[in-house]
């Protein structure tokens, strides 16, 4: 059965407060090259049929008001 990976990210215009905290922590640890951190989500779905994954993203997995998503193929059905 194919596994599909959905990567959900916050829209670039929105402040990622958790990402900002992680960026500050990395900078304090000496990783001064870090300028920004954005935290997203990875959702892996095992589906019998992948044709409706985008619809699932639109309806539940991502909130179009604040998030973008990308669908990646992980394994292909044999």
């Amino acid at each position, binding site marked *: 059965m194919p596994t599909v990976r959905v990567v959900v990210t916050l829209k670039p*215009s*929105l*402040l990622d*407060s*958790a990402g900002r*905290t992680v960026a500050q922590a990395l900078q304090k640890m000496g990783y001064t090259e870090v300028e920004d951190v954005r935290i997203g989500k990875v959702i892996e779905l095992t589906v019998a049929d992948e044709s409706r994954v985008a619809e699932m993203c639109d*309806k*539940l*997995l991502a*909130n179009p*008001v*604040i998030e973008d998503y990308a669908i990646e193929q992980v394994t292909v059905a044999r």
Partner: protein
Amino acid sequence: MKVAVVRYPGSNCDQDAFHALTDDLGVKADYVWHEGTSLAGFDAVFVPGGFSYGDYLRCGAMAARAPIMEEVARFAKEGRPVLGACNGFQILCEAGLLPGALMQNIEQRFICDTVELQPVNRRSFWTAGVTRNIRLPIAHGEGRYVCDPDTLKRLQDDDRIAFRYAGHINGSTDDIAGVLNEQGNVLGLMPHPERATRAILGNTDGILVLQALCRELAAVEAR
């Protein structure tokens, strides 16, 4: 006249809402399970706070897709009173019944406090009884209201900001604490009016908001 208090797995302000409505406001109320498909016999909806579905995925995301929400959407469309407080606000936004979304507080801290609110809209039945700044409890980790600039302008121009925090509380856009839908019958707010309805709680300002239900429902009955 009866108010439906919707219960989801993880709701935890449902009993507060029920008792505020029945004991302190004297209106009839009953619980409705989220898997229900009918709001027959009800005249208004209270979507309570809590952590529906454990806040998994996004706050309110799963609750917004529960079977009862089709009925809540019908109520919203028909102009009946719908109120969402805290997680209820998040659920109404996720359901698309209110614009925008609620994100993690800007300082990443859960805030449990009593805050001052300024009523902005003065025309909706929800806010008509709030003629001064009020103080209400808040208890949220994800209460930072966000929306795109066009939506914000629409909210401002159409007088749909119900309440603003009198100060910067959680990083909300324009310090928004509560918004109204286009018709003005759906109110979402992060503060908890149901936790401030009797003297023993130290605060009765919540009555000023919830009384709107009594007035509106009495008006409906008179029609």
